């Protein structure tokens, strides 16, 4: 049994929506993260996947206490972070680092690489004197595959991939336990993405790092993660090991997401079943009642879906959790998909295709998307 490094319980982040000319009046809340519970095991990678606006980035930041959670708890290696005083939290930060999506904007353009890498060491008083720090930094540069002459250079003098390596070096130099990587490759060229993904995997092996990788690209997440969590509108809808999730997607949203990810193989593309979702993401300020996905779900039922919010429950092997009232029935084919008309309030679209394609494509509902 592996040790749990991070345990998140019922985490909530609600941003107030303010209106008013003179006095701010709170007129509502954007429920960016609304009750997420998950565990990240030591030395493993937890992948969080979801589309823009699902709250995955906010969850990552709330976990690191970079955004103050509205409710819930985050336990990091035995320490409760949400109630930790500022000073202790600051020294705790050494152990949990972050890698950002845009390597350019996450590096101070006026700092050279040496100063970028020294900053964290100084903040935590690591490495004593200058010579010792330099040695540590030199070692880190080697580890992330940057040349030593990079030290005196500034971020704008590097290519995108190299900048991301600087961002990784900045996190790794502090010898952290956990790294939260928020879309670490999505801003990079295709040929560079693989370099960075490989680097992250090598570093994990070498340093025993624990990752929380947040990405919109299911293929990237599946490739890098031991456990994958799928988020929709502020909540986890499904969680399983990457292989499990791929072979046996139980939640209708996961199925739709999987069928939408393009695979660079014409044979696969031609044969695959496509579940086209109707419409766009509803507003997180005013999420649908009951199951948040029921407005777009081709399997939605007249009972329960609209008024009872499903929690994550274990199905099958014990590690596969899904938040759907009808997961078993959908899997067995007892419940058949039907066409969904997009709600106009929800900026819906795609109903037209959903009709035609669903009827044709879902002759074999529940089959894996291959």
């Amino acid at each position, binding site marked *: 049994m592996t040790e749990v490094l991070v345990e998140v319980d019922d985490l909530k982040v609600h941003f107030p929506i303010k209106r008013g000319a003179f006095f701010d009046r709170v007129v509502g809340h954007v429920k960016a993260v609304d009750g997420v519970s998950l565990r990240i095991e030591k030395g493993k990678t937890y992948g969080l996947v979801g589309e823009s606006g699902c709250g995955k980035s906010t969850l990552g930041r709330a976990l690191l206490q970079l955004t103050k959670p509205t409710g819930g708890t985050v336990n990091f290696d035995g320490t409760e972070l949400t109630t930790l005083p500022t000073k202790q939290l600051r020294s705790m930060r050494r152990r949990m680092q972050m890698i950002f999506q845009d390597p350019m904007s996450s590096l101070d353009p006026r700092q050279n690489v040496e100063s970028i890498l020294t900053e964290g060491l100084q903040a935590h008083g690591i490495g004593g004197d200058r010579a010792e720090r330099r040695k540590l930094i030199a070692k880190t540069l080697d580890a992330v595959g940057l040349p030593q002459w990079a030290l005196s250079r500034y971020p704008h003098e590097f290519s995108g991939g190299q900048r991301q390596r600087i961002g990784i070096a900045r996190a790794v130099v502090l010898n952290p336990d956990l790294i939260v990587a928020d879309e670490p490759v999505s801003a990079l060229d295709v040929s560079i993405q*693989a370099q960075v993904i490989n680097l992250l995997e090598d570093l994990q092996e070498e340093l025993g790092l624990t990752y929380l990788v947040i990405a919109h690209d299911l293929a990237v997440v599946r490739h890098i993660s031991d456990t994958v969590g799928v988020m929709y509108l502020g909540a986890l809808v499904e969680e399983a090991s990457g292989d499990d999730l791929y072979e046996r997607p139980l939640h209708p949203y996961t199925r739709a997401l999987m069928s939408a990810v393009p*695979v660079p193989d014409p044979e696969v593309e031609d044969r695959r079943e496509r579940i086209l979702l109707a419409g766009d993401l509803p507003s997180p300020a005013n999420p649908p009642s009951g199951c948040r996905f029921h407005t777009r779900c081709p399997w939605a039922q007249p009972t329960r879906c609209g008024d009872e919010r499903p929690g994550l429950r274990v199905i099958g092997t014990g590690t596969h959790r899904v938040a759907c009232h009808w997961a078993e029935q959908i899997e067995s084919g007892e419940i058949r998909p039907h066409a969904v008309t997009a709600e106009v309030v929800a900026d819906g679209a795609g109903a037209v295709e959903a009709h035609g394609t669903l009827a044709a494509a879902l002759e074999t509902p529940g089959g894996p998307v291959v």
Partner: protein
Amino acid sequence: MPLLDVKDLSVTFARRGQRTVRAVDGVSFSVEAGQVVGLVGESGCGKSVTSLALMGLLPKQRGVTVGGSAIFADDTDLLKTDERTMRDIRGRDVAMIFQDPLSSLNPVVPIGVQVTEVLTRHRGMTGDAARKEATDLLNKVGIPDPTRRLKEYPHQLSGGMRQRALIAMAVACKPRLLIADEPTTALDVTIQAQILELLRGLVRESGTALIMITHDLGVVAGICDTVNVLYAGRVVESARRKPLFAEPRHPYTHGLLGSVPRLDSGRGEKLHAIRGSVRDVLPWPDGCAFAPRCDRQVDACVGEPPALVEGIHRHAYRCVNPEPATAEVSS
């Protein structure tokens, strides 16, 4: 006869005090009616510049030179047409869809006005007829409640909707050629799937030709009939979709395919990364631009640019030491 025949297209940007950049360097390809042709490559490979050159949208200023020819429908050379004729061709015969629908729509004009404008300009429709046609168009691209949407402003629509509106404007005059420049890059995957399905349907039903510009090999695999892979301004490989993916001959194509994590491959399989970055190019006149990053680099790679070799089934590649064809290996 192909609908569009691009021959030896080149675009150079010369700026005072700076090195002249050859963004597109002798690109040739042709597009048949009802066909989807993909231009694939990473940032800086010249794919977007190619599309702008074809649309006559490159800045007309000193230092920008366009060479070669692009014969459209057997009679018009898109590269040599004067601005007035080009304005008539754009929107009517050739239309373009951009990556960022928000910046391609006028933010202070309702969607409806923008769509009817196209109809008025190119099809001479006015008043109720134009409004009705606009409603039909929005309906056709899958925008629900089109009569209401027509009165809305771009910022009131979601990203996917805006892209649909833009596609509606592009297909308003039933153009014979559509150029889509990364049309789904700014969108979420589920929305991307909707838009790709829409484009597929349009090509199937109307026989429009589509040039699909993208960096995403997955998108290419799903929609294109033939694919041109660009690197540093030149086509390095060109083939029909299936042979290209089954048997990539150019090491760059091969590397790209190996460096993308696939949804259907398991955890932990090491990705085959291409070393270096797109900055590490050899200038084409000195040899193969990809040579500094290539695993299969040999002596012959340097010295002179490799020629485009045409293999079986019009599968062409620009490489002196190509990846072995699986068919050859097995036989």
